[in-house]
């Protein structure tokens, strides 16, 4: 039966996450926006708390509980609301608090997501409980992740990694870096694998930390890998070079894109709620019964933004729900990411405009949200990459036909 409300059983989780966002994130939000590269030590205690939450149930916590599709014998006709949905709901609430701080949460990195999603049981045991960042992008390969140049050569029982990685979220603070590298550059995407590199590996050299437009609480590191040796067992997933292997790596994104969409949804809601309050104090109330065009222009604009927010929110929940129900969701995950990413940018900027100097000033968080928003339409696949994925699926095209 169609019901697009937050499931009853996840309401306590959402409330809890909202409390964390309100009590922990919001009070230090501006502090770490200003103190870029300072480690938000307040998060350590919180991270332990969230580990406990993840341990306790199938309720996903802050985002990196992993998105393994269980192949258990549950009735496929039965509607499931599981960890994908609960994780998305948690991420929305936490990012309503502060998206930069969520990205800085120990042990909640995208690397953790990748490990949780594709690691073998031994790898899970070996790397469990550690904080893992994800290193894909290179100076010459951004969206085109099949073009990466970092190489991995098998030498006895070890792989030797060489190359350069940029834009590694939490790269300085994490315990592990999941590095994408190619086993054979002549074999294209099929040869691309991910490797778990310990942060203290002597072959992994931190070049610098970036100064950014937004999410300044989160560190963004650039590395050089120079004869960086990792054990053979550090290769995540299947070591065979075959086309499907890369598809497997890319499938990780089907699972993480709804999470990034959820981040965008959370930031968008924060801006809308604040703006609604500001407009009310300026004498503009949003009236849902009266046609938008019969209301003040600010109210009509707000309604428009809220409508985009709602679409983004629903698309995000749908993508997660499909994962919970083992339905292929690559199309819906990219739709959610595309819609949520652009909506977040449009709405946060629109809110700054509506609130004028109050929106622009650093005494409020509106301007910060508008700066934080932009990355959400870029990482985990830019707007344009999402549109490509959606188009290929809708039109039945492969990546050589529609480039």
């Amino acid at each position, binding site marked *: 039966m169609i019901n697009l409300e937050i499931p009853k059983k996840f309401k306590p989780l959402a409330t809890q996450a909202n409390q964390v966002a309100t009590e922990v994130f919001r009070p230090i939000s501006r502090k770490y926006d200003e103190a870029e590269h300072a480690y938000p030590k307040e998060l350590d205690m919180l991270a332990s708390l969230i580990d406990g939450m993840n341990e306790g149930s199938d309720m996903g916590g802050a985002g990196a509980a992993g998105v393994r599709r269980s192949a258990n014998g549950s009735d496929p006709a039965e*509607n499931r609301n599981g960890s994908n949905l609960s994780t998305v709901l948690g991420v929305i609430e936490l990012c309503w608090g502060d998206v930069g701080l969520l990205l800085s949460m120990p042990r909640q990195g995208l690397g953790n997501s990748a490990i949780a999603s594709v690691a073998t049981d031994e790898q899970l045991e070996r790397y469990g409980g550690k904080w893992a960042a994800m290193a894909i992008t290179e100076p010459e390969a951004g969206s085109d992740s099949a073009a990466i140049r970092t190489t991995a050569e098998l030498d006895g029982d070890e792989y030797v990694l060489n190359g350069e990685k940029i834009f590694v979220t939490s790269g300085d603070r994490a315990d592990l870096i999941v590095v994408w590298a190619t086993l054979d550059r002549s074999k294209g995407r099929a040869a691309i694998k991910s490797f778990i590199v310990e942060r203290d590996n002597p072959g992994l050299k931190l070049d610098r930390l970036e100064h950014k437009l937004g999410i300044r609480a989160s560190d963004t590191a650039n590395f050089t890998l120079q004869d960086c040796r990792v054990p053979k067992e550090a290769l995540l997933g299947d070591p065979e070079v075959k086309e499907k292997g890369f598809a497997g790596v890319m499938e990780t994104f089907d699972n993480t894109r709804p999470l990034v969409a959820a981040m965008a949804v959370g930031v968008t809601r924060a801006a809308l709620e604040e703006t609604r309050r500001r407009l009310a104090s300026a004498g503009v109330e949003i009236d849902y019964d009266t046609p938008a065009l019969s209301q003040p222009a600010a109210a009509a604009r707000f309604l428009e933004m809220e409508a985009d927010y709602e679409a983004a929110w629903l698309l995000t929940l749908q993508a997660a729900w499909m994962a919970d129900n083992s339905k292929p969701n690559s199309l819906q995950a990219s739709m959610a990411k595309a819609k949520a990413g652009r909506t977040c940018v449009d709405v946060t900027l629109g809110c700054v405009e509506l609130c004028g100097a109050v929106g622009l000033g650093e005494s409020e968080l509106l301007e910060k949200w508008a700066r934080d928003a932009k990355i959400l339409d870029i990482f985990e696949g830019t707007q344009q990459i999402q549109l490509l994925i959606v188009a290929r699926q809708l039109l039945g095209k492969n990546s050589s036909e529609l480039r």
Partner: protein
Amino acid sequence: MGIGLRGLNWLAGSDLLDRIRIRKGVERALFQGTKGGFRTATAAGRTFEAAQSLGKPARQPRSKSKGLFDVTPDDEQAMFQEAGRAFAADQVRPAAKAADDERKTPPEILAQATELGVAMLGVPAELGGVMEGGAATTAALIGEALAHGDMGIAYAALAPSAVATAIGLWGSAEQEATYLPAFTGEDVPAAALAILEPRPLFDPLKLETKAKRDGADWVLDGAKSLIARASECELFLVAADAEGVGPALFVVESKAKGLSIEDEPAMGLRPAATGRLILEGARVPATAILGEGKRADYVECLNRARIAWASLSVGTAQAVLDYVIPYVNDRKAFGEPISNRQGVAFTVSDIGIESSGMRLATYRAAARADQGVDFAREAAIARRLCAQKGMKIGSDGVQLLGGHGFVKEHPVERWYRDLRSAGVMEGALLV
């Protein structure tokens, strides 16, 4: 008008005009003389008599949600959806072009829609209908399915159900007993939920149609726009600003004195043969006010209508998507399918993304209505998305076909006109 329609028809059919080469001039003169529209009488209409009243009005039961997020319809809804889709594909779409050209939905299509049971959805089971817990969602799914065939035909077919649904939701026991049995048989009367008025920035909470008390009666004056099959309607629910009450709905039978119909052709929804209802001192009894005339009921009615139009927009938006995909894949330019170009492909992506968002927002609003929780916000949002994104989809549909989209060989220009219309309509349909 000094010239009657019969006379005009004779004139149009005669060779005289052609023989003396004055047809163009006469036609232009006629156009000038009739811009205000011909007025004809409303339909004669049947006699609605109260069957045995239930004593207290039958009402729609709440849907019993398990409290889980779910995008799939339940079995009954899926059945209606499937039937609606099959009917739309087999009957509605093939008839759409002619219906648009002729401004008429074939009677056999209306009869088949009745067979589908669309009018019974809003009638409580106690009165022979099938109104169930999930009725709003079911109606939205049917609206979407039929509008995938054609929005104008969907409007023509579903308009009477709006009246049945409104009476089923808010009517008194007496009104239910009087009017609802007619909607459960084969011969469902044409009927209209008449709210929209012909003026810019129309606000359905500030009506220019007035209902004044006169003794025990109400006397209505005003005009209602874009009514489906207006000249055939036997029953109207007319929104009027009632003296001492505020905006409310009145049950007005077509044979009431003081009613007339003007033809009102519009940019879209042409198969619904839209017309304008003029009320000039139309007198109805005190009991004609729907239910208790509560403002909350009226506002709920507005919001349910917005969900209904949103559902039609979703169906037509999906029709655009389904049509442009094979077109841009087949159409070649510069030596390859135009869909190999990002400018084209990304437009298709956006149609997919925004139509999915519209659909989910519409479903959410409808499901909330079924659950008996407030849905004003969700209805307003569904409407905003459908008015704005729906129109963009209509425009992109034509754009992707270029000049071919602009000509009537392809349906995209019709969808362009219909998607504009859906964002303007108030009332007229209900979920």
